[in-house]
């Protein structure tokens, strides 16, 4: 393998990350924000996979292992987020994050 593919992969994950960030910043729907966060998270996971794959010896295994752990962690995080969405929707009747702005200044 040459160095080129790694750069390409990193570029891919960076783009993914940027998409996630863009979503977090622009979406007002809590569910969409959650999805955007997941996209960004996946960019990080991808990174671990590439870097692991491109490195030698046991160090490479770390990346793969971390990726698996992170997938599990991301699921947990989303679950908690969904719980909050549900509770918020029940009390406030909306999941638009911009409308929850009682606390300010």
């Amino acid at each position, binding site marked *: 393998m040459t160095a080129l593919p790694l750069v390409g992969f990193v570029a891919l994950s960076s783009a993914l990350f940027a998409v996630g960030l863009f979503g977090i910043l622009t979406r007002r729907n809590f569910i969409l924000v*959650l999805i955007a966060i997941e996209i960004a998270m996946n960019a990080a996971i991808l990174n671990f996979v590439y870097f692991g794959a491109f490195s030698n010896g046991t160090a490479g295994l*770390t990346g793969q292992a971390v990726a698996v752990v992170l997938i599990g962690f991301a699921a947990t995080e989303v679950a908690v987020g969904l719980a909050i969405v549900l*509770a*918020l929707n029940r009390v406030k009747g909306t999941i638009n994050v911009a409308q929850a702005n009682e606390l300010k200044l």
Partner: protein
Amino acid sequence: MDLSSFAGPFLPEILLLAGTLLIFLLDVLGIRRIEVTGAVAAGASALALLFVVADLGFAPLAFLANLSAGQVDVAIAPGATPLYAFTSLGLVFQGIFLTASFLVALASMSRPSNERGAPIFFGLLLLATLGMLLVTIASDLIFLLLSVEIVSISTYLLVAYTRKDVRSLEAAMKFYIIGALSTTLSFFGASLLYGAYGTTNLFAIRAVAGSVGYPVLVLLGYGFLIAGLAFKATLVPFHAWAVDVYDGAPTDVTAFLTGGSKKVGLFAIFLVFLGPVLFVAPGAGGSPFSGGTVNIGPVLQVTLAILAVLTMTVGNVLALLQKEMKRMLAYSSISQAGYMLIGIVIGTSPALTGATLQMFANVFMKTGVFLVVAGVTALGVGPLIDDWKGLGTRRPLLGVAFGLMLLSLAGVPLTLGFVSKFVLFSSAVEAQGYFVWLAVAGLLNSALSVFYYARVLKVMFFDRPEPDALPTGAVAGGSEPSLLAAGGLGYARATAIALIAVAVVAFGVYPQPVLGAISNAAQHFIHVGP
């Protein structure tokens, strides 16, 4: 692996886990009385605290010690990549976190007994504390970040635990979104560092920090990591969530957030950045784009110094303008983070001592003030500072206790807050050179901070209350509670507040025991920490 040898070092963590499980078990069994669950949580924290103090070498508790000398502050062999390591500084922080959790649990026993969700509250409290304890021993970036996430996820839920209060839920939502975003940043940063260094082990990174060929990648990675951890530590400009969350969360949770979980972020920054900060490449550094070596240490120092000054200044300035008690205290809490960051910026053992002492002090002061606010709110006092008019004269003991905490926050001599700032800023001067300006900035900020604390004191002690503005107590309407009665506050909360007030003064007058321990720990940490 022999179970006992495994259980020994992790006894505090196991205690907390057991406590959590016990609370949830009781919940399942239908025992949800706040006194019971609270007692379990407070007891578990207190017991764990005793073990940690014993491990730190506090002689009268030596019989409780379960870490042998060979397990703490051990120099890591070159090439070894342990997942965790016991350092005495970590133990100090364990003590700090357990103190916060104990105080919050104790005080929360006085929450309204008809409130739902007590088991969730106390269970999550212990769980979050468990995460904190794990952070203190982490020596691997992923282990560290996951431990931080245990804290984060627990606290998201803690904020929302009432499930009914719209403000709490809004706070939880904000906390969650910004928290999740920051988590993403942290892990992305960690992945870049992994790419650059080929390892996620902090000892390994310390060994090679700065001497890798991808300075841009390393710096980008550290940038992501700083941003991610700065969320937890509430550094400006990653702080905006904190004010709303501290304001919206149930106040006892706020006490825990500011007293405990914020320090997690700071200690994580210590762990991640101490190695790189201490690294100075031989020869002059240059731009990371020029291909030469980069003095990653100084670059990180400058960056963190900017963050520190920005944080303390913005926090203070905004606190000055606040009319609401909780938000004012929230901003003041943000500014405190700036002081503590100075410790890692300088990266010497005196500076670590100062920053750690500052955090130790902060646990009492910040947890204390929010516990008081929670109690006073329960008495029916409104959210504005002006609503506190005459409180000091109506309830002198509470007033004096709160006053002591505020004076300590303001850094008035003979309080713990003064000693901690004195040591911290001394350490900046001790480091000499440009660090002296950090001391100046910090001191000027602390001068600024005096104003908003003094304003509260003025309102409490000098302003006359409007008639009937201050209910005399939620329990016994009409008659003035006697001086010593905990009336309305609840005995558990009153005990916690009294403990804090005493600690603030006692350690302020004679800080030597704590300071000595922290100083030792910091010295070791510089050499054997990750």
